[in-house]
């Protein structure tokens, strides 16, 4: 697709027209939650947040993979980072995430741990090949978007017989988390803007339950302002239906069935398991663990790591923010005890978290 065509999805005039249509078709308040952190940032960075009609209430969801990585999982990274002859391979945005004692991989690095920032999981295989005396542990964090590539990396390691490569799998699955959020009687979510990247892998049908079971609209969408505004229009229209089906606005990237090959690779290596979500807690069948036949790559088993639940952080309201029950600015710690320089809770941890986005971008 040419850059010129892609520019259309940022076109300010088209956005203004869509805003007018949105205003005209609204017949009351609509509270939408965008699940994905990239959408959160897109909504703020484009200035959309400040020009949406006041009836459109924006809630940021749990779709930032860094935000939902549980403190006990971060503690496990830190435990491994302190071990001799271990190299931690990670995507950049995990290295500032604090565990329950406030330490992060950046501190561990300053204390002498080897932490390498990589751009693709395949780079961690190269690290393992170049460092045969060390064990390279890749931090497997993320949603359905990244899990297939990581599974493919494991398959490649097995094919090569690479013994010094392991993965700490803390992957999370999006649909089970949405089920928990929407079924909570205290949440007031009228519809979801669904993560386009995740749907390139899983397609749109795993979200059928949102309309069928809860009667709420859900739109898979891209990351430009035109995408988001179109998605909101779709949402307003389909909120009038009794059992709306999920809509695919992101047709240029997402097919209805996603990428079955990627899903197959993901489930060849991993199987679903219960997972801990930071700020939310345990969600059944919302994570990915190694299948038995790949256990030699499972850092949890190889290093005998104990991942236990930590007590909640005193005063932190991130759980309520992630569930759409509270606006970031209503949290008593926001901008005071909790800032991007010294984040307390998950929503302030990542640049894609909702509290971080409010802190970073909101004018008044």
């Amino acid at each position, binding site marked *: 697709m040419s850059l010129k065509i892609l520019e259309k999805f940022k076109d300010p005039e088209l956005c203004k027209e869509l805003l007018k249509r949105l205003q005209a078709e609204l017949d009351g308040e609509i509270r939408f939650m965008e699940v994905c952190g990239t959408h959160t940032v897109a909504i703020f960075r484009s200035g959309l947040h400040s020009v949406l009609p006041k009836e459109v209430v924006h809630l940021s969801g749990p779709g930032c993979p860094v935000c939902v990585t549980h403190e006990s999982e971060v503690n496990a990274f830190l435990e491994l980072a302190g071990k001799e002859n271990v190299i931690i391979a990670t995507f950049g945005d995990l290295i500032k995430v604090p565990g329950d004692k406030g330490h992060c991989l950046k501190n561990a690095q300053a204390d002498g741990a080897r932490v390498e920032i990589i751009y693709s999981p395949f780079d961690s295989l190269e690290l393992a090949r170049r460092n045969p005396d060390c064990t390279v542990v890749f931090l497997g964090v993320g949603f359905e978007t990244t899990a297939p590539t990581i599974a493919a990396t494991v398959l490649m390691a097995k094919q090569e017989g690479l013994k010094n490569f392991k993965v700490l799998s803390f992957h999370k699955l999006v649909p089970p988390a949405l089920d928990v959020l929407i079924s909570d009687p205290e949440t007031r979510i009228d519809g979801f803007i669904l993560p386009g990247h995740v749907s390139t892998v899983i397609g749109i049908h795993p979200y059928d339950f949102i309309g069928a079971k809860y009667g709420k609209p859900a739109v898979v969408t891209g990351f430009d302002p035109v995408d988001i505004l179109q998605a909101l229009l779709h949402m307003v229209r389909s909120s009038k239906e009794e059992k709306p089906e999920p809509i695919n606005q992101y047709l240029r990237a997402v097919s209805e069935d996603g990428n079955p090959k990627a899903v197959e690779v993901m489930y060849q290596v991993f199987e679903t398991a219960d997972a801990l979500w930071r700020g939310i807690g345990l969600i059944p069948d919302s994570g990915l663990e190694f299948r038995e036949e790949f256990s030699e790559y499972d850092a949890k088993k190889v290093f005998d790591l104990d991942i236990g639940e930590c007590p909640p952080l005193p005063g932190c309201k991130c759980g309520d923010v992630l569930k759409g029950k509270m606006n970031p600015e209503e949290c008593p710690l926001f901008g005071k005890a909790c800032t991007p320089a010294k984040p307390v809770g998950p929503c302030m941890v990542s640049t894609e978290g909702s509290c971080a986005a409010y802190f*970073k971008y909101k004018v008044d």
Partner: protein
Amino acid sequence: MSSDKVLLDYGSGGRASQRLISELFVKYFANPELERLNDAASLKLKGNISMSTDSFTVDPIFFPGGNIGSLAVHGTVNDVAMLGAIPKYLTCAYIIEEGLPMDDLETIVKSMGEACKEAGVNIVTGDTKVVPKGMVDKIFINTTGVGEIIADPGPSGDRATVGDAVLVSGTMGDHGLTILGTREGLSLESNVQSDSASLNHLLIKLVQEIPDVHVLRDPTRGGLATTLNEITVSSNVCCELDESSIPVKPEVAGGCSFLGLDPLYLANEGKFLCILPQEYAEKALEIMRADKLGHDACQVGTITDANPGKVILVTPLGGRRLLNMLEGEQLPRIC
């Protein structure tokens, strides 16, 4: 030189050091003051003096558009010039890792000499240390520069005034993306290259022809966003930027989008930011655009009293958002 690699001997202070200095540094930095090889330099300076120092530890040391040597001259020359000064003299100190290929060192020293010639400055004193392998990453260079301030009143970060125009001399983020892309071996668009250059000749023209330039700054580490935040805090004013006016090369915008980075936070090494009364904006832009280092210059915003100490970005949609100071370093994200 007798070896193809830098040995610890070259930092010993003995004959090997002397050979390194005379056959390499003095050869490429040639000027009468340095050639005296005294313990210190004797300088001719008058009036108010601008002085700045910087240490260069860039990885990789060679990158499209320059290397650590030329960068060490450009960076300090630009810092000195941003006070409305004519840079005159530089010092330079090398800390070299044992084993650095002599050819690499020569390339760096040579390009440093060439950059000085272009900028019209002399390296008048220096120092060389060689440290055991692993103690530094290949080579670190420190440069200190001095120059004579000719602007009166001189530009300063605390002089931005409500009603002023905010200008940039060209596209943002070229250097930062080049360094990141080269460091990580990413195959970015082939024409992304560092903008590293000495801006002093253009800056001198500007301060000579515009009666009162309020602020000059080079948006290096932290980029345009961080630099503007420093200025709005120092001057207790608000800067309102028009996002559509900020020049960013399409290949830089594309690379940033791919890596999840923001070009407004990426370093520039051959661009400057100029804040001055709106009535002089057109004239300043004419001067900049007439120079090859400023032909993409444009006005990107204005200084207001709306939110003192803040930078506000007005997006193409007409939305408004904060453009905060960079917290830590920009890191590519998971998805």
